[in-house]
């Protein structure tokens, strides 16, 4: 590849822009996480709010960390939460689970127990039936990682 000085400059600038821009949503090593969110939202940027994740601040055992999520919604036929995607941005694979709700859920709330390999962010993205998306993120400090083998 032959590049003159001007082309090199533009290339350089482009690379700098490409490196700094995606860093803004604060997923340092979370490319896979960002990808999963993108797939889930169809490219829409989720808004902060409505979703509330509840996780321990410090998890001594990463093999079983309780995680609860609730979404503020009337859960009526007209307005309800369709699903909530739970991710962890520091695991070998970010995916954890997707909760699929219905108006018969009464409230959009679910709890499970998850594996966390190390200290990292747990992310919840909620999909409303009107096509909007909301997100919450919580840092969990893990003492003993839970992917051992």
């Amino acid at each position, binding site marked *: 590849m032959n590049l003159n000085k001007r082309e090199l400059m533009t290339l350089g600038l482009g690379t700098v822009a490409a490196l700094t821009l995606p860093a803004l949503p604060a997923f340092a090593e979370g490319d896979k996480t960002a990808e999963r969110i993108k797939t889930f939202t169809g490219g829409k940027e989720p808004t902060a709010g409505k979703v509330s994740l509840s996780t321990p601040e410090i998890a001594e055992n990463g093999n*079983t960390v309780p995680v609860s999520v609730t979404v503020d919604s009337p859960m009526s036929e007209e307005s309800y939460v369709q699903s909530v995607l739970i991710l962890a941005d520091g695991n070998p694979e970010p995916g*954890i*689970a997707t*909760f699929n709700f219905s108006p018969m859920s009464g*409230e959009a709330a*679910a709890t*499970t*127990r998850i*594996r966390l390999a190390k200290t990292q962010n747990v992310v919840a993205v909620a999909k409303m039936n009107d096509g909007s998306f909301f997100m919450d993120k919580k840092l969990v400090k893990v003492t003993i990682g*839970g992917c051992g083998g």
Partner: protein
Amino acid sequence: MARPRVKVPKKASKGEVITIKTLISHKMESGQRKDRKTGEKIPRNIINKFTAKFNGKEVFSVDIEPAVSANPYLQFSVKVSESGEFEFIWVDDDKKTYATKKKITVE
């Protein structure tokens, strides 16, 4: 292995939002672990889907990935407006299905 345990209130009032707790014993082999002797990866076998139905209609489900802990625990809510029967179904990577049913009286 894999005997499901479910807690559903026996009675509820019409329109009440009840909490359901489920637990099933399953090792949830993540596919990330290596056999200590051979060094080969142990093949993944997890429960990948949970479904809760009420009177035959799906009310809640979960798509599960390997990062859910062994013996997966799930807690969720359902609004009940009539008496009936819940059915809970777990399916794992080997296509094994585990199911249990619970009745509720709504007054």
